[in-house]
């Protein structure tokens, strides 16, 4: 599968992609995050073709919303493709296809927001997990990343603006422990460290530095 493959006939709705809201990272981000943010910002700027006035579009159907969301996620991911190993990225795309499949989407749910997806991508770059997360979504447009290893569970809701809302349950030396918090992405690795996050992420051979 190529870096960006959208499993439907391409429609002429590029204007939506130009309008994509890309969130800025929080202050004090690393060089990698800044580079990602710059790329996302450039990506969000409309091309000269679309600088003119736009017509007001009718409300989009659920199918259109899901399609457009998926397209935006894949194109956004492609802008940081150098940080994700090809096979890893392709499989992530398959998961996104599966999560946002029209046949299984709850009609009352909005698709995950681009802000949530941007946080998700930055989280992957910062955590550098060898294992991809399982994917889910809340009923209000937040992407959920989960890692499960036997009974040890880590669940991260990717909120806008590089904020992670996380919950975990682990068994350490025979004792069950639970923890939860809302943490800026940059500190996420640090707050997870006491719980041995390698149990979920394993090694980091599949995510490369630029």
């Amino acid at each position, binding site marked *: 599968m190529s870096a960006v493959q959208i499993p439907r006939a391409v429609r002429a709705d590029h204007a939506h992609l130009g309008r994509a809201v890309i969130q800025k990272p929080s202050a004090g981000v690393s060089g990698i995050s800044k580079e990602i943010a710059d790329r996302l910002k450039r990506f969000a700027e409309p091309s000269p073709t679309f600088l003119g006035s736009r017509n007001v579009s009718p409300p989009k159907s659920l199918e259109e919303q899901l399609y457009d969301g998926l397209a935006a996620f894949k194109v956004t991911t492609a802008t940081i493709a150098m940080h994700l190993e090809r096979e890893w990225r392709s*499989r992530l795309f398959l*998961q996104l296809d*599966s*999560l946002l*499949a029209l*046949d*299984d*989407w*709850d*009609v*009352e*749910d909005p698709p995950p927001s681009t802000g949530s997806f941007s946080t998700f991508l930055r989280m992957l770059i910062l955590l550098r997990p060898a*294992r*991809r*997360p*399982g*994917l*889910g*979504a*809340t*009923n*209000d447009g937040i992407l*959920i990343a*989960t890692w*499960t290893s036997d009974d040890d*569970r880590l*669940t991260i*809701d990717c909120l806008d603006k590089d904020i992670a*809302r996380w*919950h975990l*349950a682990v068994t350490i030396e025979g004792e069950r422990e*639970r923890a*939860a918090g809302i943490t800026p992405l940059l500190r996420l690795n640090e707050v997870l460290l006491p719980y041995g996050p390698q149990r979920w992420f394993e090694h980091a051979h599949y995510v490369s530095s630029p």
Partner: protein
Amino acid sequence: MPITYLPLEHHVVRYVPWSRLRKDEDDNVIGVLGAAFKLRAQEDYLSATWAEFFQGTRADCIFSAIKAIRASSFSVTPRSGFAIGNVGRVKDACLADKQRHRIRIIHEPEDDNKAHSALRGWPRDNDPLLDLLAEDMWSETVLNKDVPHSNP
């Protein structure tokens, strides 16, 4: 009409869409997410279906509850699932939380689902509790694809 509280030893079945099932990186379903029990902004209570409203063995009751959900106006999608929880354990977990949620699980039949039940006083902002329910007290999961459409 008198209020019917569900007996503690009975069970409730909740529909869980594909996006709220807990999956591994290859989309194998492991269970449900805490988000499966989160109220929508406009909801006052959590909806579920009372299994023992129906007659028969435990399996019969759960099958009938799933059939009732399928027959309702709800859109049950192919890869969705159903989470089964024990009434007493769910109530105890909510009460044991530090916010001490005193929930009520009430039979509130609807035109399209006579076994419909409402979980009232449901926590609105307590994700750790919802995660605990998903992991333990309300974790039993049946996939829609694994439940036949006719009597087993």
